[in-house]
Structure formats: C-alpha cells, structure tokens
C-alpha cells in the first residue's frame, strides 16, 4: 500500500511540475516515465476496483447460474443416462448369457437322455431277439427230439413185428419145401422144427 501511495505522490508532483521539468524527468528515468503515463501500476489502481468488482459479480453470477441451473445438470444427466444404459445392457447381456447356459445344459441333458434311451431300446431289442431265437431253437430241438424218439419207437416195433413174422414165414417155407419133396407135412411139425432151429 505504501508503494502505491508513493506512486500517487510522485504522479501528483509530475503533474504539477512545469512542462519542461516533466519532459526532463521523462527522459531521465523510465520508471518515473511509466508512472507518469499510467499514474499507478494498473493492477493496484483502486479507481478501477469498483467497476471490476461490479462486472465480476455480474459475470460470475451469471456463470454460476448458467452452470448450476443448465449446463451441469444437463451434462450430469447425460453421464447418468449413459451409465444406467450401460449397466442395463450389461445386466441384459448377463441374463442372456445365463439363459444360453441354461439352454445348453438342457440340451446336454436331453442329448444324454436320448442316448440312454437309444441304448436301452437297442439292448431290449437285442435281448428280445436273442430270447426269441433261443425259444425257437428249443422248440425246434424239442420237436426234433420228439420225432426222433417216435421214429425210434416205430423202428423198434417194426423190427419186433418183422422178427415175430420170421418164424411163421420160415414154417410156411419149410412146409412148402417139405410138401414138394415128400408129399405132405403138417404145419405143426414144421413150426416145431423151425422153433428148434431158431433156438440153436
């Protein structure tokens, strides 16, 4: 503050001094020259304070109102909107991802189920066919065995029957042979002879 007062005093002196003196002073020192021209160092010139303060109040007040009422809420809302939008999109993406995973799991389960079913069906068919084949084979074998035993039985009876007839035929043949050779022969004797021969 002291410097300012000094400057003012200097200026006052320069102003009141005769024109020639002022010119001399101007030439001798630039400091005094500057002081004479500008009266005081402008940033410390109290005469400009009032006007500057008034304009600062007007302009800064306007700036504050514009910022707090219009500009900042708008930018804030833009940023908020974007943030909620991004958050929402991320949540939606997460939801879709989980859905996809669920669908994939369901698909896997269905696939495994189908595979299991296919195995079961194949197994069932295979065992069914095998059982069928076994049944039929058993059937066929049974029938064959039956027929075989029947045939054997028949052969046996035929053989028995044939063997039983052999004596009679031999007796008849013997009667015929004897009657040709000696004229007569009884059937009873022939049978006895045959029986005697066959016993030997």
């Amino acid at each position, binding site marked *: 503050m002291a410097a300012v007062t000094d400057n003012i005093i200097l200026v006052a002196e320069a102003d009141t001094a005769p024109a020639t003196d002022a010119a001399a002073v101007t030439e001798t020192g630039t400091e005094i020259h500057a002081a004479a021209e500008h009266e005081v160092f402008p940033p410390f010139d109290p005469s*400009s304070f009032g006007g*500057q303060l008034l304009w600062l109040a007007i*302009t800064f007040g306007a*700036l*504050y109102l*514009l910022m707090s009422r219009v*500009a900042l809420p708008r930018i804030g809302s833009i940023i908020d909107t974007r943030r909620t939008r991004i958050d929402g999109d991320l949540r939606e993406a997460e939801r879709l991802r989980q859905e996809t995973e669920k669908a994939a799991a369901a698909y896997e389960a269905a696939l495994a189920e189908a595979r299991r079913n296919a195995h079961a069906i194949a197994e069932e068919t295979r065992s069914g066919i095998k059982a069928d084949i076994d049944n039929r084979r058993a059937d066929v074998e049974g029938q064959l065995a039956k027929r075989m035993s029947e045939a054997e039985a028949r052969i046996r009876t035929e053989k028995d029957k044939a063997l039983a007839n052999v004596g009679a035929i031999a007796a008849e043949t013997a009667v015929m042979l004897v009657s040709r050779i000696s004229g007569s022969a009884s059937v009873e004797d022939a049978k006895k002879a045959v029986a005697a021969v066959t016993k030997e």
Partner: protein
Amino acid sequence: MADPNKVDPIHQFQITNIVQFGDGGLALTNSALFMVLTVAVIAVYLLLSTQKRSIVPNRVQLISEMLYEFVAKMVSDSAGTAGMKFFPFVFSLFMFVLVANMFGMIPLFFTVTSHIIITFALAMLVFGVVIVYGFMKNGPKFLKLFVPSGVPGYVLPIVVPIEVVSFLSRPISLSVRLFANILAGHITLKVFAGFIVTLGGLGFLGWLGALLPLVMTVAITALEFLVAALQAYVFAVLTSMYINDAIHPSH
C-alpha cells in the same frame, strides 16, 4: 530510442473504457469485456456441445464431459459426497479462472486474472462461503477447525493462534498465488519479447542476438500455458479443500 521499440511491460494491464454508459457511471472496460467473453465462451461451449445429449459422445461433447468429471472427481476426492453440493461453485471458479487465463495467452487480449482485485474477490468469495456454510452446518463446532484433535492441551495456546492466522491468510495466499503467477508470467513474456524487438533494431549482430530472447519467449509461452492451466487447477483444488474444512471442521 525510437518509440515502437520502447518496451512497456505494464501497458498490457492498463484498464481502458470501451463504452461509457453515462457520465462517470458504469463503463464497459476491456477487463469487463473479457469477463463477459470468458463467461460467454464457457456457457456457449458447454451448452452447444451438449445440446444433442448423445449417449455416444462426439469430440466436443466429450471435452465437456471430461471437464465435468475432472472437477466432480476433484471435489468428491477432497470434500466427499457432501461436498458435491458445492460442485457447481467449484466448477464455475475453475472454468472462469481457466478460460480467463487462457484468454490472457492470446496476444492483445486482456488478462482478467492479472488484477489482484479479481483474484482477491474470488478468494474472498470462497472464504465467505466456507465461513457461512461452516457455521450454518456445524454451528459453534465449526471453531473446532482451529483446535486440532489429538494435540495436548498445553500446546494449544501456541497451535490455535497459528491455525487462526493460517485460516485468515487463506484468501490472501489464494488470491496472490493466482494473481502473481499470471502477472509475473505476462511481464516476463513481454520483457523477453521486447528484447527481440530492441535487439532486432541493431542490425545483423542484433538479429543474431535476438535469437536467444526469441527462444526464451517461445519457451516461456509454453510455460505460461502450463501455468495458466495449473493455477486454475490449484485454485479449484484449494477451494475444494477449504470447503471440506467447512463440512468436516474437526481434522
């Protein structure tokens, strides 16, 4: 020395009337004009770039959103969610200081923040907001701000005055930091640029000699862009921290 070669680094801070409304009344000065331009550029950019409200932002809208999120993070990191009440305030301060500083980097443009009264008024606004809100929210407990917890009682007579002084000096340090950085930067830039002109008027050797200040000017210009952005950031961060004190006075 010829007049065009005269280097006057102070002239750029001169406030001149552009339009005078009535005699001795309100005047539109160059300072006022650039305050209006600063606010207009901020408002027009933020409003136009976000007009479409697109979910997928284009480049212009993205810059607005990045500024928003940058300051929002700054405030919530320093002052927590309770501090978000002051987000529009901090955002306005940050944008105002940033754009005003950046306007200052354009040749022939007036730098609003090179005047102590502007930065001091902004700092006092922060100071006032902290005090008023601090007492409104915490009542007399706000005074705990000056009594750090966990400090033994016999040290308090020393600590409390220090805390009070540091609290009271906040608006000064906050305003002088911004003002001095911008002022010094602009003066340095002007002085070095003036050397180029002065040396350039001295013939061939002068031209060679002018290369050095030319390089310096380019480098300082880059530095000043950094300072312009950094000081806006520092101002906003400190504001957030002071607001945190108003919300949570016991530290």
